[in-house]
């Protein structure tokens, strides 16, 4: 699904997400694009990035072409610094050792809440989705980056079900519910990069991806968009980023 630029939406999403990470951080990554983006950042710019997986891995170093089918597989442990129990690695989030949580979702709303549990009424669901996994724990306990494909049905005013909390109903509602730390600070899509304003805690566009107009973005979003005062344009993927990404995922397991 190569667009006119010579890269796919999933590749763009992975590369832009990877740019959000900094060397020296401890990042808790979900399977799929978050895992791939963290690995890309680690290989390209951030050799001191420590990647955690919910299967119980500290300091993962994923091998090119050997992406794991889940974050609970043995491939996640190759060359890691430590393996530990699942509860133990999740408790690192609660204790505060994790700088960035990094995950995807089926549905996101204007306050950064994610749904990966139900489409439709939970009592009589149209679709029962797989559920939270570690997503709720990451979102509840760490500052978080969300990476997801931008589609109108995925970017909604209110999610059908809050699986992983963002800012709940905005303002102070997250803290008031007992979630004292963390919160989503970036949403990265194949169309734009978003942040959240400091008061209302509502999603706002920080930069548009190459070739994307405000109108196109709004047409693909289920709520009225706010734009940051100094709207930027995302730098397109470099050849180096694309080459390395294709080396990591030659079979297009996650970027297909």
């Amino acid at each position, binding site marked *: 699904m190569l667009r006119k630029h010579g890269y796919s939406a999933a590749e763009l999403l992975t590369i832009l997400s990877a740019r959000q990470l900094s060397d020296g951080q401890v990042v808790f990554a979900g399977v799929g694009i978050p895992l791939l983006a963290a690995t890309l950042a680690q290989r390209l710019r951030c050799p001191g990035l420590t990647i955690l997986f919910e299967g119980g891995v500290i300091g993962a170093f994923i091998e090119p072409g050997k992406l794991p089918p889940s974050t609970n597989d043995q491939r996640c442990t190759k060359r890691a610094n430590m393996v*530990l129990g699942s509860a133990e690695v999740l408790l690192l989030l609660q204790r505060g050792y994790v700088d960035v949580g990094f995950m995807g979702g089926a549905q996101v709303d204007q306050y950064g809440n994610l749904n990966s549990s139900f489409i439709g009424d939970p009592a009589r669901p149209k679709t029962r989705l797989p559920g939270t996994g570690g997503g709720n*724990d990451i979102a509840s306990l760490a500052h978080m980056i969300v990476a997801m494909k931008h589609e109108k049905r995925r970017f909604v005013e209110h999610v059908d079900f809050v699986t992983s909390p963002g800012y709940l109903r905005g303002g102070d509602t997250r803290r008031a519910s007992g979630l004292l730390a963390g919160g989503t600070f970036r949403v990265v899509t194949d169309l734009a990069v978003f942040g959240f304003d400091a008061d209302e805690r509502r999603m706002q566009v920080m930069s548009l991806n190459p070739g994307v107009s405000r109108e196109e973005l709004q047409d693909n979003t289920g709520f009225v968009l706010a734009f940051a005062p100094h709207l930027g344009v995302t730098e397109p993927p470099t050849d180096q980023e694309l080459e390395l990404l294709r080396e990591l995922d030659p079979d297009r397991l996650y970027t297909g």
Partner: protein
Amino acid sequence: MAAKDRKATGKAAPTYLELREELLRRDRSLRHKVVSLEEATSFVRDGDSVGIGGSTMSRTPMGMIWALIRAGRKGLTCSRSIVSSDGDLLYASGACDHVVTSWFSQGILWGVSKVMRHHVESGKVRYDEWSHMAMGMRFRAGAMGVPFMPIRSMLGSDVRKQRPEAIEFDCPFTGEKLLLVPALNPDVALIHVQRCDAYGNAQIDGLQFMDVDLAMAANKVILTTERIVSNDQIRRAPDQTKIPFFAVDAVVELPFGCAPHECYGVYEPMLRHMEYYVGLVNGDPVKGMQQYIERFVHGPKSWSEFLALIGIDELLEAARAGESIYDA
């Protein structure tokens, strides 16, 4: 009191003294516990609460689950950190009508399990969703002999609203809001390990998931193991022993006991078989599952025959990949 009886009496969980009495009734002496796979099924009764070790496609006790389905167990409530195709089989065979977990589908490579969807959306079965950490802390509380653990996740979410069993609580020390998640003490735990001795001293390589807490929380533990080793070998590396013999009630030697899933350092998942399986059952969750269960669960005479159906090429390939984790 078995989970079924507790369901009937509306009682949520065993009391502390009931749990201790269950322990006292067990023969915890240093004795040989090796049984056949078929014999091991007698440790699980209809209606039991069953804790399943491993996570997603890793160290899943697939052989034991396979045997329980063949033995016709019904009405099980199954809890696990993350559920994969094991859950499809448990629902579709009628062995289980209630899954307690944090995530349920075959694997991220294959989208949403149509089998899980079919059963849950039609209202035939229950799927109780907890956060992954909440599952861990529920087993942890069970292992600790306390009725709950406090956590700081799930608060504010709809996952929490769906779970009235969890209670919001203001900390008596700090006044902070916490969520109390109830202990989970399954009637029986099914755990697959790389090696153990005939007494049940179990060594786990690589990822442990929630298995140690699960073993200590459960009222009974059935181990399946790639290999039974001597007690001398266990004693040479006691730091590798993760589950002590006195928590274990039965030991089954079952090579490739996680097939088609993974066993750390021994074999990776058998992805060709999984692709075939997912194609079949997600194409038609009812007929596809019937066909699969008929051919792969009830068809073979033994676990070895099931492995032969997966095919020697795929087993060897998975084993080569599994052992490669130890390559420099």
